[in-house]
């Protein structure tokens, strides 16, 4: 039973990690908690289902299309909501982020209705639901394996983008010092847009995977998942991409074990409690570094 | 006799050494100039003394209410309470509040009304409020801003903002005042007023440490100067000595200038 809880937690954690990198990258470059990120995660699930049911596209194509759409939504979000507020106090940007989150959530409710709906099972290969491995009492399904594989692959790609490409270097420069980066000839707004696009497309994959894994999608799904992913980002050290990955996995496992062994009713509370504890006792998280305000 | 003693103070930010083993004293009542080229560590020194930064090494001693104490690691508000007040390189005012309110906030650490006083408007709270206004008005008159009492601080001209910041720091009743580039951006007339103001502050018995790039101003009002370069103290002494010190000339004008 413990092994099974661990495997379930790991699956959950991989998904949190994918959402959390979106929070952490955006926070890294513009120091903003993008509350609407959870909504992008939700929109991706709905878009994917719409593409499949309306256009009858195969799932592999749909994943890439959804990633593209969500990247676009993320960039638009930045351009229309956040960019005008770059010079404003942070309070204004935070309130805008919350406002956008509520706006998108209700927009989805108007477009797709508030009823939960299942993912289109016919679009998926049938073997996904069958067990792939089993040891002792625990089983790992092909779906879980696929989630591990996809998430790990995306993390590696992300890591390479950030560390090996020009735009990745620019992103890192930006998170160190925005003015300095601008003086060095970096097109700040373009890099920020790229960051939103990258984070949103990661969130998009997470959204589709959650919808498939739990076989359900509903307009409020982004709210709780978003907060938990943010907690994961905080746990790993906000602004740190490897931190977000580690934080997501730890949180997923903690949640599954906590729900299995402590109290299933407080499972959402576990994420919040971890987050509050980290913020109080180690605000820099596992891999983050503390910063000093320049006077 | 010394109001402030800095003893081999070191401040390290990660790999960057902003202050390295800097030592100097400040005599009570003097106007000390702290000079050096950009990035020399002057503002970092102010931040350490005023408690904004905690130095990574060395000691700072400050004489407060007749007692000499080590002040490393105290918070800014505590340092203000001990009697260290400061202004900032880029003026930091409460821009949305009125000129009077800015100075009244300066009176914060010398007053003590609390929530209950505020809500029940006790006699002592009312008297204290009256006194805060009177004191604030005195300081505004002292710097010459009594005509702008009800203006919004953000709407003042740059020179007036500088003066307001000085008035606000004076309102905290300091024994040591740290002025960070007070003349920056001022026209000659305003600079002349400023010199006069600094003298009048000194006449009140307040020790002043001054960071300034305007050498003419510094040389004219400081009896003693400390020169920093790249976090190291390179010279100390009267204006004449400093002007002729080859290290200082080199620091300001670059290597070779001193030889020439």
């Amino acid at each position, binding site marked *: 039973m413990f092994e099974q809880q661990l495997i379930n937690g790991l699956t959950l954690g991989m998904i949190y990690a994918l959402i959390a990198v979106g929070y952490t990258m955006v926070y890294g470059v513009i120091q903003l908690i993008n509350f609407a990120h959870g909504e992008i995660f939700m929109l991706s699930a709905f878009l994917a289902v719409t593409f499949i049911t309306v256009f009858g596209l195969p799932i592999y194509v749909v994943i890439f299309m959804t990633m593209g759409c969500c990247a676009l939504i993320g960039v638009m979000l930045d351009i229309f909501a956040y960019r005008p507020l770059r010079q404003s106090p942070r309070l204004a940007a935070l309130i805008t982020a919350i406002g956008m989150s509520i706006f998108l959530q209700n927009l989805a409710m108007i477009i797709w209705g508030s009823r939960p709906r*299942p993912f289109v099972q016919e679009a998926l290969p049938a073997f996904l639901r069958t067990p792939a491995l089993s040891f002792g009492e625990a089983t790992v399904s092909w779906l879980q394996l696929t989630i591990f594989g996809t998430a790990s692959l995306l993390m590696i790609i992300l890591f390479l983008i950030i560390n090996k490409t020009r735009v990745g270097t620019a992103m890192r420069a930006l998170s160190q010092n925005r003015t300095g980066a601008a003086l060095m000839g970096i097109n700040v707004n373009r890099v920020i847009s790229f960051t939103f696009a990258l984070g949103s497309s990661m969130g998009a994959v997470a959204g589709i995977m959650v919808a498939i894994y739990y076989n359900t999608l509903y307009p409020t799904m982004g709210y709780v998942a978003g907060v938990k992913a943010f907690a994961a980002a905080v746990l790993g050290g906000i602004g740190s991409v490897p931190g977000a990955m580690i934080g997501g996995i730890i949180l997923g496992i903690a949640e599954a074990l906590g729900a299995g062994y402590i109290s299933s*009713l407080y*499972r959402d509370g576990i994420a919040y409690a971890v987050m509050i504890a980290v913020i109080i006792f180690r605000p820099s998280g596992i891999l983050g570094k503390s910063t000093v305000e320049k006077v | 006799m010394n109001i402030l003693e800095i003893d081999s103070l070191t401040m390290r930010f990660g790999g960057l050494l902003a202050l390295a083993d800097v030592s100097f004293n400040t005599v009570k009542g003097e106007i000390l100039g702290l000079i050096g080229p950009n990035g020399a560590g002057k503002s970092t020194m102010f931040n350490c003394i005023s408690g904004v930064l905690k130095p990574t090494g060395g000691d700072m001693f400050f004489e407060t209410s007749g007692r000499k104490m080590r002040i490393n690691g105290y918070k800014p508000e505590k340092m203000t309470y001990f009697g260290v007040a400061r202004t900032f390189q880029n003026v930091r005012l409460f821009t949305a509040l009125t000129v009077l309110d800015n100075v009244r906030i300066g009176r914060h650490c010398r007053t003590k009304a609390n929530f209950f006083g505020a809500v029940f408007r006790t006699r002592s709270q009312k008297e204290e409020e009256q006194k805060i206004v009177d004191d604030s008005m005195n300081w505004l008159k002292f710097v010459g801003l009594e005509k702008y009492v009800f203006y919004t601080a953000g709407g003042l001209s740059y020179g007036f903002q500088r003066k307001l910041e000085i008035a606000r720091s004076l309102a905290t009743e300091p024994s040591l005042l740290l002025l960070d580039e007070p003349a920056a951006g001022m026209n000659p007339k305003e600079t002349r007023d400023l010199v006069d103001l600094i003298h009048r502050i000194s006449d009140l018995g307040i020790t002043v440490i001054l960071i300034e790039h305007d050498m003419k101003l510094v040389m004219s009002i400081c009896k003693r100067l400390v020169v920093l370069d790249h976090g190291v103290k390179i010279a100390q002494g009267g204006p004449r000595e400093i002007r002729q010190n080859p290290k200082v000339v080199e620091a300001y004008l670059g290597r070779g200038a001193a030889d020439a």
Partner: protein
Amino acid sequence: MIGKFWLKVVLTCSLLLILSSPALADTIRIAVASPFTGALAAYGDNVKAGVTLKVDKINAQGGIDGKQIRVEWMDEQCEPREAATVSSRIAQNRNIVGVVGHLCSSAHLAALPSYLRHGVPVVAPTTTAVSISEQTKDRNGKTWAFRVVYRDDYQGEFLAQYVSEILGLKNIAVFYENNDYGIGLKDAFVNKAQELGLNIVGQEAYVGGASDFTPQLTRLRGRNPDGLFISGYYPEGALIAGQAQNLGMNVTKFGADGFDNVDYITLAGSAAENTYLTVPFLADVAEGDAIEFLENFRERFGREADWMSVNAYDAAGILLQAIAEAGPDRAKIRESIASINSPENAYQGIAGSTYFNDVGDTLKPAFVKMVKDGQFVAAPVQMD
């Protein structure tokens, strides 16, 4: 600035006054209070559909005494505070002569004080909470609130009996939603089950709106049950069924009326197979008007009617029958409804006959449905 502010307050209030002022009196108005937005809007839609069919039918027949029936749709999002606001609005509007609602027991409980104080007859289509029975009378001992559905304790006990006697299961795992419905139902079930000698191997709770139930299911799986009682609503129930299947937990599942929605099968897919549930209404044993209703419903809304629509249809029917008998007068309508108090003068609705006891509760038989080949069908054996 203060002046501006008060000006706004007064303008707002006068606007509200205008909006809530009486309309033309050639219609009879009733209110339907349910969640039409929010998480439970889907259920509200079912109620809306049922009432719409009934009202349209009466209106097509010329209304009551030549007056058309107009329905005020009052959205309370299933939130008690909203429900209290809505009920006070309804009570205040003297043109509204009766209410069909509310959907959720908690909202119903919060709304009742206003109805009782002002004397508004209420017929609830779906509120099964036991505690409502204590809140239906006003200060003078008159019952204003009625319901056309059985109580949770009844269906919980019924289920325990059915599981034990008909399905012959022995080791039952209980998975309940941590809310009034889930707990009330579960408690009645567990008590009766223990009385009947069933072995309750484990009880786990979940929070409504959650999407991952694997930790609890993993625990329950470890106890080797042969039956899983899911005490909650279908959206979570479908996910639970699916995730239980993924965990290799292929046991008989059963639930109560909260499962009766085709979306249960749509959401759970093949995992829904072999689920039993109690319902106050069974299409397969329907006859007469009920068959006509089901056809009309399918035609009009493009989906199968569930018991909520059926009960809403009957609740509206009872209210409208009382209006027809007593005229548009709240107190007389109440008397008319309260007089339906014995099997002899019961209201013959599409969900069978309905009559009320002293506190406005009704005794109705429960039916059992099951999922077979992706369809709801009547269970092969019913119990009386």
